[in-house]
């Protein structure tokens, strides 16, 4: 088993010529094909990727690589616009839609020489916490097929029944999380509105980072909730997330909500002494639905910090219980607004009805959107009606301010980061998960993550350990606004302490030898 302590940065490997970008690209493409059953990708941009790899190779040959990301395979969630590559948001509404421009974050990655493997699957329009409600089908959690999980389940050998109890990835950036977890790329972009990057990261055993709102440009990210959305970063280790953040952060004139200050790429320093840190444990996050296992890991993590000299204190975020309702009102209101542009006239799906414009709108939107999306639009429009605006929208904005202030107060009292669970439990089997509707699940699963979006703070989910079932459990660190580096520094220390195991997927691959090679290579980070 390859452990994380054995690092051989793939960036270094590329620079030293131990492997070429084209070889790396091809290996990842082959892995994508082998893991097709996971349904992590909606579009695999094979031609584009190979071309980019070829160009990267030329640069390396000349000794002129663009940086740490040059030649590195990445994947992008299918709600980011990619020029010339279909962008669907996993919705019938945008099936066949090919944007004429790249989202700023995509452009930045491409400018660094990254190789785009494809667009990953999600819940339709990023609404959901399972990656199960997209027009292209659900995403399967790679851990469903891991040795660790199968052993614990005392599984019968391969048969068709085996696949019927596969696990969800969490959502809505499930495709990106699965793509990273299955080694098909080194980093993936997700989006995070209420936890959509952190939730699947926890379920798939990868690092899911949500930057501070305003740090990374949203231009080209098809919006869900403009005031809460951020592009999220999914990687196999914290260092990699930091590298990607360094490339993406900074002011974008095309996004008026980004901060003005320029941001330079940075190397994450290694923290060795946590004795000066103060870790906050929000008492309201001790939810009754929290599984015993997660609670136990949370406790152990707190103890770990304490044993290493950090100050660990209980803090209070008193308005936590109102958070989910408040989020619901504000989220659906903005969704109703943002979805108004999908009318079938200019792009995307258009129905066949020609009777009148109104009839055309109605049919197009009914055909193009799934129930989840339509439900949120209706709810949002209700809250925005003149007679309801004051009581719902304005009230929710006020409550949002209170929630954000809760965090400010806590951070002002000397706390450096908060430590909380990311999810209530490990990944659920799909058949279990779909017993409740999307709205119920979202309300349950977003419980630890959405207050962070309301407050615009940075947060990261770090895989901690495997549950009794052999499934990944993640814990969340929440930092001060724009102290993303500090947050990642602490997360990196923690990651080193817990030594989360590498997923073992060999069983599924027929082709024995080359797999371990890929795995060995793919399981490492970008840098030393």
């Amino acid at each position, binding site marked *: 088993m390859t452990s994380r302590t054995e690092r051989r940065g793939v960036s270094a490997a590329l620079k030293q010529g131990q492997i070429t970008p084209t070889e790396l690209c091809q290996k990842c493409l082959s892995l994508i094909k082998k893991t097709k059953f996971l349904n992590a990708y909606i579009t695999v941009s094979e031609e584009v990727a190979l071309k980019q790899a070829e160009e990267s190779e030329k640069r390396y040959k000349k000794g002129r690589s663009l940086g740490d990301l040059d030649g590195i395979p990445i994947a992008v969630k299918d709600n980011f616009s990619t020029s010339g590559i279909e962008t669907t948001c996993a919705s019938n509404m945008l099936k066949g839609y090919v944007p004429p421009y790249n989202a700023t974050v995509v452009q930045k990655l491409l400018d660094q020489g990254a190789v785009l493997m494809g667009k990953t699957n999600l819940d339709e329009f990023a609404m959901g916490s399972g990656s199960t409600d997209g027009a292209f089908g659900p995403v399967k959690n790679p851990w469903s097929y891991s040795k660790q999980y199968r052993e614990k389940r005392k599984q019968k050998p391969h048969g068709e029944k085996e696949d019927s109890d596969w696990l969800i990835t969490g959502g809505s950036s499930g495709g990106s999380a699965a793509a990273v977890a299955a080694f098909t790329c080194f980093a993936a972009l997700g989006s995070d509105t209420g936890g959509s990057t952190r939730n699947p990261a926890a379920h798939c055993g990868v690092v899911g980072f949500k930057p501070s709102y305003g740090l990374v440009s949203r231009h080209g990210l098809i919006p869900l*909730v*403009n*005031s809460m959305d951020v592009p999220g970063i999914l990687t196999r280790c914290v260092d990699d997330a930091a590298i990607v953040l360094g490339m993406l952060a900074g002011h974008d*004139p*095309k*996004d*008026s*909500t980004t901060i*003005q200050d320029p941001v330079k790429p940075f190397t994450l320093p290694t923290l060795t002494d946590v004795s000066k840190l103060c870790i906050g444990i929000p008492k309201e996050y001790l939810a009754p639905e929290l599984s015993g296992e997660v609670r136990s890991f949370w406790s152990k993590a707190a103890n770990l910090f304490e044993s290493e000299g950090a100050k660990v204190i209980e803090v209070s975020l008193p308005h936590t219980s109102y958070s989910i309702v408040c989020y619901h009102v504000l989220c659906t*209101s*903005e969704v*109703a*607004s943002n*979805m*108004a*542009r*999908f*009318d079938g*006239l*200019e792009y995307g799906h258009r129905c066949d009805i020609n009777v009148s*414009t*109104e009839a055309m*709108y109605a049919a197009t939107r009914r055909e193009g959107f799934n129930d989840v999306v339509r439900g949120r639009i209706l709810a949002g*429009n209700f809250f*925005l*009606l*003149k007679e309801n*605006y004051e009581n719902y*929208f304005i009230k929710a904005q006020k409550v949002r301010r209170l929630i954000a202030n809760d965090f400010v107060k806590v951070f002002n009292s000397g706390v450096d980061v908060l430590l909380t669970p990311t999810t209530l439990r490990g990944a659920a089997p799909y058949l279990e998960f779909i017993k409740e509707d999307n709205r119920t699940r979202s309300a349950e699963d977003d419980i630890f993550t959405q207050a962070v979006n309301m407050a615009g703070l940075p947060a990261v989910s770090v895989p901690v350990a495997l549950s009794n079932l052999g499934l990944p459990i993640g814990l969340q660190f929440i930092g001060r606004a724009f102290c993303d580096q500090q947050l990642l520094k602490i997360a990196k220390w923690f990651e080193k302490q817990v030594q989360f195991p590498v997923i073992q997927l060999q069983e599924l691959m027929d082709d024995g030898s080359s797999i371990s090679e890929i795995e060995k290579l793919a399981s490492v980070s970008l840098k030393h």
Partner: protein
Amino acid sequence: VLNRRCVEAAVMTGLALNCRINKKSLFDRKHYFYADLPAGYQITQQRLPIAVNGSLAYSVCVGKKPSRVITKTVRIKQIQLEQDSGKSLHDELRSQTLIDLNRAGVGLLEVVLEPDMSCGEEAATAVRELQLILQALGTSRANMAEGQLRVDANVSVHHPGEPLGVRTEVKNLNSAKFLAKAIDSEIERQIHELENGREILNETRSFDYKLGCTMPMRDKEGKQDYRFMPEPNLPPLLLYDTESLPPGADPQQVINIDWIRERLPELPSETRERLIQQYGILPEHSFALLNEVGLLEFFQNVIKETRAEPKKVTSWVLNIFLGFLKQQNLAVNESPVTPSALAELLNLLDRKAISSTAAKQVFEELWRSEGKTPSQIVSEKQLELMQDQEALERACHTVMEGHPQVVMDVKRGNPRAINKLIGLVRKATLSRADPTAIKEILERKLSP
């Protein structure tokens, strides 16, 4: 993303209209579904617009010569920045609508006036003044026919002392003239309805040019709930003045209201005042000079090159020049006569090289045939005034001798008789004598 030039234009317009500029203003989304609105919402400033509480002064001329000028004011409720939608072109024949999205998203300035005007002419005059102001500021060319300025009128009637009646909104007006007509016809219609016991519906009506009255518009339904919501992608717009400007602020990123105020160009009302002071012309002439695009510039260019008195120049520009333009439906910049040409002509007139009748002839010729200078035309047509005083005296003498009866009339005190003599002398001199000089000589000769 907010366009800086739009914000500057809004501030300039707000200052020119005496508004209070809100140092903080907000953007909202106004939601409705329409084919020419691709986002399904329009970004506007419903909660807190960029400028409020201003005024627009306009002058109505009462009576003919001499006309009195009365100044009226209409209050400006607010000025707001918003997005334009696309353009719908209805193809009735094929039952389809073509949508042109080229202008969707372009910045607009909406100026909302209070209901302080009472008839079509007032509204049209106010709008014309607004056009002049916008043109002077450079914020818009404000041509209604080209859609650079779009005007909707809200019309209601009420008995004196009672509150304002139900209003209708009249759209589809592409000139100030039709604006006035539409308003007046709508006022008439409303009065007629009310007097016949019916009610006025709060509806949108379109002006029908052929029928000369307003008709209800099919497209717009009753009241819509626009579900206003703050625009999350545009932070509040903060403007500064010299006092509140943060130190070390990047001038590219901030707008200083005082800086803009100091650089405001001369507004039409100021220009008119200045013309009156500077050239001693009458207020109504000052008005007229500003009322035609390019006329003021033409006038000023003539003044620069001529020694003639401003009053003379004014008279020539407003009566003769403008008359010719209007007759042939030309704009000032299409005039075949250049300011230099007219200046030269006026110089000739001024030093009495030609008579005013001759001058008019020359002008006609200038208008018809480009390229010739006034001097050339004068010599070609031999229109020079007689400079020879003695010859003129002889001519007068000859006429007087030849018409003793008329001379008698003059001596008897008939005031018109002298004109007859002048006319005869002019005929005799082939109109090459200055009537004033003739008159002077005759009077001298006739006096005892």
